[in-house]
């Protein structure tokens, strides 16, 4: 059976309105293989797998399972064909136990009594067999992200699938959890299953896959066995001709050049014993102390939801600081309003750009001045100077390469990458001492990521201090001079450049280690 074809997608095309997300894509999956599906954000990976899972109806294309043509109209069809999928943002019922979440929607034997002992035992067995450690009787809401994902994988395995699709499963995991996931995947394929592993991270795909397919702009680029694939070939395939890989920051092996490594002496931001609490008074950020100097990028690593957002918002005056000290250039910022902070030269790139940074019904120029509407040159003797605003907007549109027909265009027409360019252009449109940036590259394609990195470094070299909160460890290790790891609102440790160690940070991210 080994190396026979398990599944094949042929000539798949899918468009959303005028956007062609997939164009004549082929994918061949062998039995007992981990197939890496690689591509930058927006390449069409999720769309392709949603077609396979019956969530999207393709405009064209066929699916063959064990060389027999199948019609998959819904996830139900997919599961009865033995295809399971773990979504990037999966939904679980928080107040249910692991077992209840897993059996939900299946046919239970003891339906009238809802006695789940047998099911629980089966889940326990599966969990041990595949190394997906989880306690079947715990409530899902009490579990960290890494375990919740195991529940989601068990859900598929419990339904007896032969093909498991994992959409960017490593996004919210610590490096240790990633390793353990990869080991589980190995066990699965050794038992005859096939796995499609979606990622935009090169190193991950190289470390676990048997074969690798690269998607770019909705088209197949190549499919290679692992031993024929090199980083270079894959990078080329991912980015195409448009990007100079030699100068790329995203794919840099050697790290930054000398100039970008310089750090100043003067502290810009000083934080002592910072506390942030929620409405009930429970602490969200506890006793955080750090300084950021001129020309320094200070990173904060951590699994999402450990207080990053609250830390950023308290420094931006969006949430109150409940205790401790924070000052910029020796001026206390405790109790200051966002407007005052913006005037002092603190600037912000929020994590959720659509919710927290974007005015969809306003035009691009109006978006570019948000927060600066009372500052020169936009404001003149009580009135807005629209000529100056549009002039500045046109300059920013050119400098930041924002794709829009005009500064008067409604911002709702911008694509995700361009919205992020607006966030960046706005943050950098005025001289800034301190930048607070939260996941500034999430969901961006490679070209846009590259652009964000180069702008952050350009500002750093000009003297700006940066607080970079990110879930992407590779990004932090590339850009930061120091990295703090936050766990449950507290810093578990701060590492200097040179002592960065992915696994150590991973241990701190999951709370098993602290570092002084």
């Amino acid at each position, binding site marked *: 059976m080994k190396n026979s074809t398990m599944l094949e997608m042929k000539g798949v095309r899918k468009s959303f309105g005028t956007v062609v997300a997939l164009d004549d894509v082929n994918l061949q999956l062998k039995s007992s293989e981990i197939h890496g599906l690689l591509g930058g954000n927006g390449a069409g990976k999720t769309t392709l797998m949603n077609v396979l899972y019956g969530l999207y109806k393709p405009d064209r294309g066929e699916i063959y399972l064990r060389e027999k043509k199948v019609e998959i109209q819904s996830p139900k069809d997919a599961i009865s064909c033995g295809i399971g999928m773990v979504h990037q943002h999966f939904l679980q019922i928080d107040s249910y136990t692991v077992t209840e979440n897993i059996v939900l929607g299946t046919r239970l034997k003891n339906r009238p009594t809802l006695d789940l002992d047998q099911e629980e035992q089966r889940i326990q067995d599966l969990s041990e067999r595949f190394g997906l450690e989880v306690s079947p009787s715990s409530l899902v809401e009490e579990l960290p992200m890494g375990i919740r994902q195991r529940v989601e994988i068990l859900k598929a395995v419990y339904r007896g699938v032969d093909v498991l699709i994992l959409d960017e499963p490593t996004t919210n995991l610590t490096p240790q959890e990633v390793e353990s996931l990869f080991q589980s995947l190995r066990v699965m394929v050794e038992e005859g299953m096939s796995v499609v592993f979606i990622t935009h991270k090169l190193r991950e795909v190289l470390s676990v896959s048997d074969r690798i397919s690269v998607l770019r702009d909705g088209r197949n680029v190549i499919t290679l066995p692992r031993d024929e694939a090199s980083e270079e070939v894959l990078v080329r395939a991912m980015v195409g001709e448009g990007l100079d890989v030699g100068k790329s920051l995203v794919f840099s092996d050697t790290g930054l050049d000398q100039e970008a490594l310089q750090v100043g002496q003067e502290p810009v931001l000083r934080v002592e014993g910072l506390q942030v609490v929620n409405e009930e008074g429970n602490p969200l950020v506890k006793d955080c102390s750090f300084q950021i100097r001129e020309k320094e990028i200070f990173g904060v690593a951590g699994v999402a939801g450990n207080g990053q957002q609250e830390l950023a*918002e308290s420094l*931006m*005056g*969006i949430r109150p600081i409940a205790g401790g000290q924070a000052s910029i250039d020796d001026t206390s910022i405790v109790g200051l*309003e*966002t*407007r005052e*902070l*913006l005037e002092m030269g603190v600037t*912000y790139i*929020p994590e959720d750009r659509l*919710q*927290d*940074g*974007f*005015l*969809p*019904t*306003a035009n691009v120029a*109006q978006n570019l*001045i*948000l*927060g600066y*509407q*009372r500052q020169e040159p936009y*404001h003149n003797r*009580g*009135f*807005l100077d*629209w000529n100056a605003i549009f002039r500045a907007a*046109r300059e920013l549109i050119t400098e930041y390469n924002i794709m829009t*027909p*005009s500064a*008067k265009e409604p911002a709702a027409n911008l694509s995700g990458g361009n919205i992020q360019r607006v966030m960046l252009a706005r943050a950098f449109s005025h001289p800034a001492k301190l930048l607070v940036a939260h996941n500034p590259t999430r969901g961006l394609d490679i070209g846009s990521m590259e652009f964000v990195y180069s702008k952050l470094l350009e500002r750093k070299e000009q003297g700006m201090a940066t607080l970079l909160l990110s879930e992407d460890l590779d990004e932090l290790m590339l850009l930061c001079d120091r990295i703090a790891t936050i766990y449950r609102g507290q810093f578990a440790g701060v590492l200097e450049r040179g002592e960065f160690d992915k696994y150590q940070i991973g241990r701190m991210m999951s709370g098993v280690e602290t570092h002084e």
Partner: protein
Amino acid sequence: MSEQTTELGHSIKALADTLIPYILAVVAAFAAVGIFFAAVGFDVLQAYSTILFTSFRTPNGFVQTLLKYVPLLLQALAFTVPLTAGKFNIGGEGQLIVGAIGAAAVGIMFSGLPMLLLLPMVILAGIVFGGFWAAIPAWLLYRFGINEILTTVMMNFISFSLIDYVATEIWRDPTAGHPTTVPIGAGGEFPLLVAKPPLNSGIVLALAAAVIVYVYVNRTPGGYDLVATGANARASRVFGINVRVMFLLSLIVGGALAGLSGAIEVAGVHHRLIEGLQSNFLLLGIIIGLMARGNLLAVPFVAFFIAVLEVGASAMQRTMMIPVEFVFIVEALILLFVLLSDVVRRR
């Protein structure tokens, strides 16, 4: 140079993009009701020419239209200003009534004062009382987050009882058959702009209010705050705008505009407080604001168009015995088609 031409081209295209759906919506609404008229046996052409041209055939028709225009414009602004910040003021008629009460009270109590003093006091009383009436729901929203749609509507009902009390108990005019107060002092009456047919100068104030509101919203940082709040309140807050204050102020300004129209009804049109003077202005004002899609530049033009239709409708009822409600159906259909065109465009 070429950049400027593309900007200009962009503006023209944008204007065409906005106007074409309106024109289509108007044509479609008239066509739909026209088919119905024809089926019932009314003379469609005569009906429509009455609706559309009564305002322009005689000086009297035109003055009637302008008199209708003033409260419609102000009601539409009272609805549109809070809408800019994303809030719904459905209390325009209560604010108009309370503004009218304030204006009448001042006009009656100080009836002896000369015009130079009394007229500004009457106008100011209307603005302050209207603003106050909106300030109550605005404060409930600010302080407790209570939905402004419910509270502004409820304030309307309170105002009905209030005007009834004022017009039947406090300053009742015993000679009138309808609940009415005694007249305000002569010094509180608006001077006439045109003597025959009589047109009071309230329209000057209404137009000035429209211009000030437009300039404020589009040319000042405070106006920018308002627009940004309406576009995305969360993002505005993150970038330093105090959005709750924006909600509060926009509703109070809306109330003040409605209150001004109450003062104009009292001091310009009736010279006394009459129960029912709010007519159906609130509903028409909301329709105008929605038809204009909240665009403050469009509001004065749409309001004029609706005033023409309203005057035409009364004439049609008088001369052809076709109920005015048909024109209301036309107006509702125009609104429906304008809103539909948004949905179509999004596809």
